[in-house]
């Protein structure tokens, strides 16, 4: 009896589903436009004053009208945020590894950091101003101070949840703790790390904007608070929209790096499918 001795099966249709149009890359636009439409309609129908909540059309007018200033301030904020964020990445990774390294440091330092992070950073900015004057430095530092914590937490969680089986592979080779950290700890916690970057980048923007509100001659925070004190609410919202756009751009960058770096972890078909 050979394998060819099969009863003829239903005609062997090649399974090539008609190539469907790929909506996926369009989704961000669809959602965004949808949001703006609902917003516009909501404002128009409810008749809310533009000094409280301007309609998107009104905001875009403001963007066009003040484009020169908006551009300059946006670039300043993007700059301070990026620098602060990079510092947070380096510092957060280092601190996360340190906390993952030793239970003693974990037990001692973690609560302190939680305590520090429960404090609104806006209370810290005046102190930074006294030390560094106003402008770029406190903005960068505030972005850093606010953004490093999620990275620390996620890297430390990633390290704490390593499967002992994986660790044992290295331990059996007589690896030092440092080796285990480098060869298993860091790669294994990368998915956590990248998750945290998405949180950290948004917080970094919040940090630099807060600092600019209190202490800067430029940046979106400065622009918005200046506009706010003029009750130029459409311009305030234009600043918020610019912030959102910059945040999304940085997120896209993170997502791209994540995809290239931790593809091994993102193999699930069902989830996000």
């Amino acid at each position, binding site marked *: 009896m050979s394998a060819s001795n099969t009863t003829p099966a239903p005609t062997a249709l090649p399974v090539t589903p008609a190539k469907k149009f790929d909506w996926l890359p369009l989704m961000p636009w669809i959602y965004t436009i949808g949001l703006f439409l609902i917003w516009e309609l909501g404002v128009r129908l409810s008749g809310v*004053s533009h*000094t*409280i909540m301007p309609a998107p059309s009104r905001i875009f007018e403001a963007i066009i009208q*003040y484009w*020169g*200033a908006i551009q300059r301030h946006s670039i300043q904020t993007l700059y301070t945020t990026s620098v602060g964020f990079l510092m947070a990445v380096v510092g957060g990774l280092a601190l996360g590894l340190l906390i993952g390294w030793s239970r003693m440091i974990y037990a001692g330092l973690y609560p302190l950091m939680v305590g520090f992070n429960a404090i609104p950073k806006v209370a810290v900015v*005046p102190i930074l*101003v*006294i*030390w*560094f*004057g*106003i*402008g770029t430095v406190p903005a960068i530092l505030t972005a850093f101070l606010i953004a490093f914590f999620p990275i620390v937490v996620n890297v430390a969680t990633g390290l704490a949840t390593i499967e002992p089986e994986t660790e044992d592979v290295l331990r059996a080779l007589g690896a030092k703790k440092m080796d285990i950290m480098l060869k298993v700890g860091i790669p294994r916690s990368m998915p956590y790390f990248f998750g945290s970057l998405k949180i950290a980048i948004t917080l970094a923007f919040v940090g630099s904007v807060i600092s600019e*509100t*209190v*202490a*800067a*001659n430029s940046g979106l925070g*400065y*622009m918005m*608070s*200046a*506009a*706010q*004190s*003029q*009750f*130029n609410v459409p*311009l305030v919202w234009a600043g918020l929209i610019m912030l959102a756009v910059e945040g999304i751009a940085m997120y896209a960058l993170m997502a791209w790096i994540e995809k290239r770096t931790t593809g091994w972890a993102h193999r699930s078909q069902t989830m996000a499918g």
Partner: protein
Amino acid sequence: LGQNTPVRFTLDWRIEGPAAGFMLAQANGHFADEGLDVTFDVGAGSVEVIPRVATGTYDMGFGDINSLIKFLDEDPDQPIKAIMMIYETPTFAVVGRRSLGVTEDPASLEGKTLGAPPPDGAFAQWPAFVEASGIDTSDITIESIGFPVREPMLAQGDVDAVFGFAFSVILNLKAQGIEDEDIVPILMADHGLDLYGNAIMVNTDFAEANPEVVKGMLRALAKGFADAVADPRQGAEAVVAANEILDVNIELERLQMANEMNINTAYVQENGMGGVDMDRLNSAIEQLKLSIGIQSDISAADVFDASYLPPMEERMLP
């Protein structure tokens, strides 16, 4: 030009109409004439200025003298003093809406809900104002509301009146679409509260080391403020040049109000800007004991130092 002495100066707030004097001193070259290279940094309120100058982060600044009195009362050793008065009368006010039953009479506030930003300078004077005007606070409700929602909440009618500087509240209410006739400012100064307002402050360590620089600064500033009084439109334009999102006409209005109510007052017309009446300042300190709880026996001389002021004729406003 490179030889100019650098001076770090912190403003009380962002660059808006009332800051025209500073901008014009810069734009019209008065600082350069004194051999000064001044950088203006914006501030986060006229209180925040004080620690900035006291710690030496800034050499000089523009802040509220009442807060300075409180600050020095807490810690008399701090190296900071006021050296030139700018807002001779502060426009501390309670601004209400006629349609909500508020009139020019402070007694009309009884039974009303007042909105107060806790860090607001006018709100800080409330106890002294109550004392001076003799109103009954027993059924006045005070709601703590921040600056961003102060005028919108008044415009919405969530509160009946708010604390603040008269000209900024009035302009902001107009921006919210409230009619001129509906806006009722009750100026505290009109009802027995006799205080000074914002002044130029200096870090005394810096002043002792560079007395000529400080004197030069004050000379230049006196010219700048005179320019702003003489040609408010030029002042408003200088402000808009520094802060391009502003509207010239609004800033002009703001500047004119500030000139009229705070800077170019009757006393100043007579005695020139910048100086203080030490007796009046001492009586202001007495009032402050009530309102913001001054405890020590701090006196006007501990707060204000007139020795850097240029002669009176150079301080006269047009």
